[in-house]
Each structure stands twice: as C-alpha cells, then as structure tokens.
C-alpha cells in the first residue's frame, strides 16, 4: 500500500483540521472571499516549509498587484526577506493572462517549475484563468478542464504540493472542473455576524486524509492565520489522574461542610443566582483557595476587567497580583465585543497547559453569552460542552458562574440549558424575611458526592462570603418569601 508524507502546514490549528497535516504532493484549491486571507495562508505555509533545497514558487497572475502583495505580506512575522530568491521564488504572468494566452501561461509556469523543481507552487489568482478560459473557448468548461488536468499532471510529475488561490464561490463547485480534479478544497469565508464578522475555514475535500468536518473559526494577526478547530483536544499534560477524588476547598467558610468536604477534583461546578448574590465573589474564593493550596489557577472573566477583578479579590484577602506575577494565576478578560467562542476556549486551554492549572474559574457563562456574537451564541452550548469535557477529563476542576433570574413560577437551577455541563450545582437566592433581603445558598446537585440538602443563610462581608446555619425553621424558601416556622431567623 503506497504511503505519502504529511506536511505540517505551520498554521496553528490547521493541521488538526486536516487530520494531521497536508498530504505532500497534493493539488489544492483555496477559495474564498476577498480579504479572507488566502494569500496570507499560502505564504504562511510556504515560509514554514520551503528551503533552498525544497524551494517554493509563488506565481502571480491577475489580481492584487504583486508589489502591494509583497508590501502587505511583509507585515507578518513569518515573512523572512532573506529567504526571497533562495527558498521562496516569485514569478508574474500578468502579461500572458491579459494577452489571453492560456497556453502561454501554462508553458511559462511549467518551464519555471522544470527549472526550479519547487516542492511547493502557489498560483494567485487562479480565478483569472477560469475567466480567461471562458473568453477563449466556446466550450469553456472543456478548455478549463484540459488546462487544469495538464497543470495537475505537471505538478504531479514534479511531486509538487500546489495551491491554486481564487475568489471562488461554493456555487461554482459543480460547474468548475477545478474542484473535481483538486485533491483538497479549502474555503476561507468572512461571515457577517450582527455588526461584526467572523472568519471561518472549511475543508470540503481532502483526498488522502480525514479532515475535520464543519466550520472552524480563524483569526489573522501579525503571526498570520491561527485556526481554532472545532474538536475535542487533550491537554498537553493532564494535571491529575481522573481517578483522583481529592476534595477541593472552596475557600468559603461553611461551604466545604455543605459539600461534604469540598468539590471533587475534576468536577464541573455551576454557581448560579441573581445579580448581587456573590457568584463572582465565590469564584474569587475558589481561585484563592487553590492558590493557597499551592495549585495554579486560570480565571477567565467576561464582565470585569483584570485590574478590577484583582482589586476586588484583594479586599477578600487574595493577593492575585502577586500570583499573576509568579505565573501561578493566569487571569484574562474578554470584553463583550466580537468574541469567538472557540478562540476563547482555546485560549483557556492554552493557559491551563501553560501553567498546569488544576482549577479554572469562568465568570460568567452569562457574560460569555452576551459577548458571543450572532450565531456564535448558538454554538456556545456545544463549545462549552467540549471545553468542560476536555478540562474535567484531565482532572481540572472548573467553576462557572451563571446569572439566573429568580422566578417563583419556574424552578430552574441553571440558565441556558447548561445543567448538562455540571457535575455540581450551587444555587444562590434572595429571600425576604421580615422586610429585609437575605441571601441563601443550597447545593442542588453533586454528581460524585453526598451533600447537604439544607438551605443555608450566608453573608457577603468585608472578607467575602461566610456561610451561616441551615434554615431548618423556614418553609417555602424557593418562593422568595418563606414562612418562619420557628423562632430562628437568619
């Protein structure tokens, strides 16, 4: 059985989408919207792979002026000018295309390939060839098929991995022989999402490999493209054995007793309740308790910025600023703007890997829902599931706060149908007692442990949350206006 080499593309996340990498010698089409990053993607792959011994040929036809392309591509970190002319070679066939000479284009390109024997070839933009075929022939499809077939054969002869870039649309796929002949078809799209846009990459065809189906978010920065695959991935180095049932202290006086000693290591916890009930404070306690126990912690906040979070935690006695400086606490904030859910969750995983965190606090799921734009919000549920599974499988304990409006006619303990995420649920609520607003908490669920069933009063004071006694003499607490059946009052 023949085997073939797999090329690492050098584009973070893309090899995962490709099932490991790109088959060497493949003939690929990269289609997509203007400005989606096709040229940048091609350059990034070339600069990651081409050498003097295995050079790359980048052929420009009609499209962006090459001199501008060079200017813009140099903005990226991967572009090494010293390798131009040695590892990366350019050629321009603008004139041949404008003259309407497809055979001339083919001959010039093949002549250069035979001279240089490149391991990689990029043609940008191939769509101009498609247009020219239509002009030249009464049977443009046949003309184009012949051209593409000859080109594919030539590339195969020299075992070249090639990329034909163009502003193709998926509607063209059935009528364009290019997509039949190609081994791989990549799509880069910029999809409007409300007032913003999200970039997504799709691999609709890949001979010789098992690509990851679906649309994968990608971003373009000075480092080039980075793809965020929609896939479960394992943490690089799991923190703890998943069979470890150690208890994780919450840092909240009285709560550990309610939990029969604390949360079980590797559990996913949701802390839900109305605004002002102390969800974020509980998250701070949990993070602080981890740091006090010598653990490393990741905190992702979607509501407060980092400085405010640190300042508030300091009031509770937590020195998060020092922990950040010591690289024991990885704390980041994402504003409710154009947020990519997959990208954010990938960042959480990266940070967990980076500091080998054993606890993650996400504050809050509700803030994340607000921040996720358009259809990203619809994917949030699925993506959260993937994130939680990856973390808990590796033994990381995850605490997620969630805003839950307090209703008496509907008994819900978690918002957004997120209960499936949680091994453990802690519910915070308001009650009115003799004209005063009080706060009570209960442990609704613990999948792997016994727990108290009682409601406990708690206070949020200068040093944070302190849990009081069980409200055994109260009836109808969930109504928000309980009856006091005895003398006791929280």
């Amino acid at each position, binding site marked *: 059985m023949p085997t073939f080499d797999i090329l690492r593309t050098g584009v973070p996340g893309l090899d995962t989408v490709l099932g490991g990498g790109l088959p060497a010698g493949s003939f690929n089409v990269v289609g997509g919207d203007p400005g989606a990053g096709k040229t940048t993607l091609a350059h990034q792959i070339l600069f990651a792979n081409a050498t003097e011994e295995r050079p790359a040929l980048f052929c420009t036809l009609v499209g962006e002026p*090459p*001199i501008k392309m*060079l200017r813009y591509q*140099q903005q990226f970190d991967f572009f090494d*000018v010293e390798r131009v*002319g040695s590892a990366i070679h350019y050629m*321009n066939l603008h*004139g041949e295309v404008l003259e309407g000479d497809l055979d001339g284009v083919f001959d010039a390109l093949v002549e250069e390939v035979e001279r240089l024997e490149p391991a990689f070839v990029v043609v940008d933009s191939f769509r101009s060839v498609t247009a020219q075929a239509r002009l030249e022939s009464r049977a443009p499809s046949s003309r184009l098929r012949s051209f593409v077939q000859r080109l594919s054969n030539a590339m195969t002869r020299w075992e070249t991995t090639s990329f034909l870039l163009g502003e193709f649309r998926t509607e063209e796929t059935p009528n364009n022989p290019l997509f039949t002949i190609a081994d791989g078809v990549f799509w880069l799209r910029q999809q409007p999402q409300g007032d913003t846009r999200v970039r997504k990459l799709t691999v609709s065809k890949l001979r010789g490999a098992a690509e990851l189906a679906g649309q994968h978010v990608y971003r373009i*920065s*000075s480092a080039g493209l980075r793809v965020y695959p929609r896939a479960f991935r394992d943490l690089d180095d799991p923190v703890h054995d998943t069979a470890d049932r150690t208890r994780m202290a919450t840092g909240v006086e009285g709560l550990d007793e309610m939990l029969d000693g604390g949360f079980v290591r590797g559990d996913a916890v949701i802390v839900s309740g109305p605004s002002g009930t102390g969800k974020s404070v509980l998250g701070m306690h949990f993070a602080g308790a981890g740091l006090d126990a010598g653990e490393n912690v990741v905190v992702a906040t979607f509501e407060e910025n980092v400085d405010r979070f640190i300042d508030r935690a300091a009031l509770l006695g937590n020195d998060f600023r020092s922990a950040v400086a010591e690289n024991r606490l990885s704390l980041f904030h994402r504003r409710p703007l154009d947020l990519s859910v997959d990208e954010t969750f990938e960042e959480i995983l990266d940070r967990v890997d980076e500091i080998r965190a054993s606890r993650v606090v996400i504050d809050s799921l509700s803030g994340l829902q607000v921040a996720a734009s358009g259809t990203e919000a619809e994917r949030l549920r699925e993506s959260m599931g993937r994130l939680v599974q990856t973390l808990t499988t590796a033994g990381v304990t995850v605490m997620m706060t969630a805003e839950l409006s307090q209703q008496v006619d509907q008994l819900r303990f978690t918002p957004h149908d997120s209960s499936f995420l949680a091994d453990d649920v802690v519910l915070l609520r308001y009650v009115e007692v003799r004209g005063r607003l009080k706060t009570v908490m209960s442990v609704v669920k613990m999948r792997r442990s016994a727990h108290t069933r009682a409601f406990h009063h708690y206070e949020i004071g200068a040093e944070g949350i302190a849990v009081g006694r069980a409200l055994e003499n109260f009836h109808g607490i969930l109504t928000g206006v309980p009856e006091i059946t005895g003398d006791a009052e929280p």
Partner: protein
Amino acid sequence: MERLPPDATPAESLARDLLSAEGYTRDSVESVSDAGAAVLSRLFERLRPVIGAGGFEILLGRAAIVGARVHSELGNLPIPEVGPPSVEELGRVFEDPDGASGLEIATRLLADLLAFLGRLVGWGLTLVLLREVWPDVIASRDPADFDDSSSMPRYRGEES
C-alpha cells in the same frame, strides 16, 4: 566619478554605485546612458518576476515624474509598458554637453526608483533582490542605513 554632495541620501549613493558598477566613467558622457540603461535593464529582469512588468512601470513612471521636479528633462522620458526605455531614449534625456548634469539626472532617476521600491516593499527585501544582481555593491549595505520610515509596519488586525 563626480562626487555626490555631502547630504546625498543612501538611495542616491546606491544609485551612483550601480552606475559605476555598470561601467560609468567620468570621462565618457555616453557612458551615462549606457550605464543607466544597463542598470535599468538588469533591474527590470530581476524585479519583473517579483513585481511584474506593471510593477516596474509603476516605479519607473513615478521616478520620472518626481525626478522631473528637479530635472525637467526627466519629464520627457518615455515609460514603456514593458521594460525600461532604450539606450537611445535614455541618451536623449541624460546626455548633455556637461556630463556631470547627465550623471545627476541618471542618479536622480535611479535613486527615486529605488527609494520608491524601498518604501513599498521595504529596504530589506529591496537589498535582497539587488544583491542577486550586484552582490559587491550591496554587500556593504544594510537596510538600517536607509530611511527608517520605510521599515515595514506590523499587521494590526485581529490581535486578541
């Protein structure tokens, strides 16, 4: 060779050295156009694969326009769609009974062309491209020697 003024730019210095490398001698007026044509021809052959014939036309056309503000003769330089002007066409612009003036015009044209190229694609890439044609002339030069304003900006897109 006629000396450059003390405030000559690095691009002007480079242009003068390229003319010298292609055989310009102080004593020969005709050698201005011959050397100038040789520089432009070799430059075109090196740049065409990278920036296309159209790209070279952009550079040359702009250099002639900008240079004409200093040397009006450059306003008469024909700019072909493909490739550099002929030796004869350059000769009509460069040649002057006073050979030094022709040298100044040639230097101005080449310096502006190179400066524009450096500004567009950066002096790092410009020198890499030129080094393949004139290794000895470029060997002692560093991109940092040229105008800092031509350094390439970093991508400021979707940094998260």
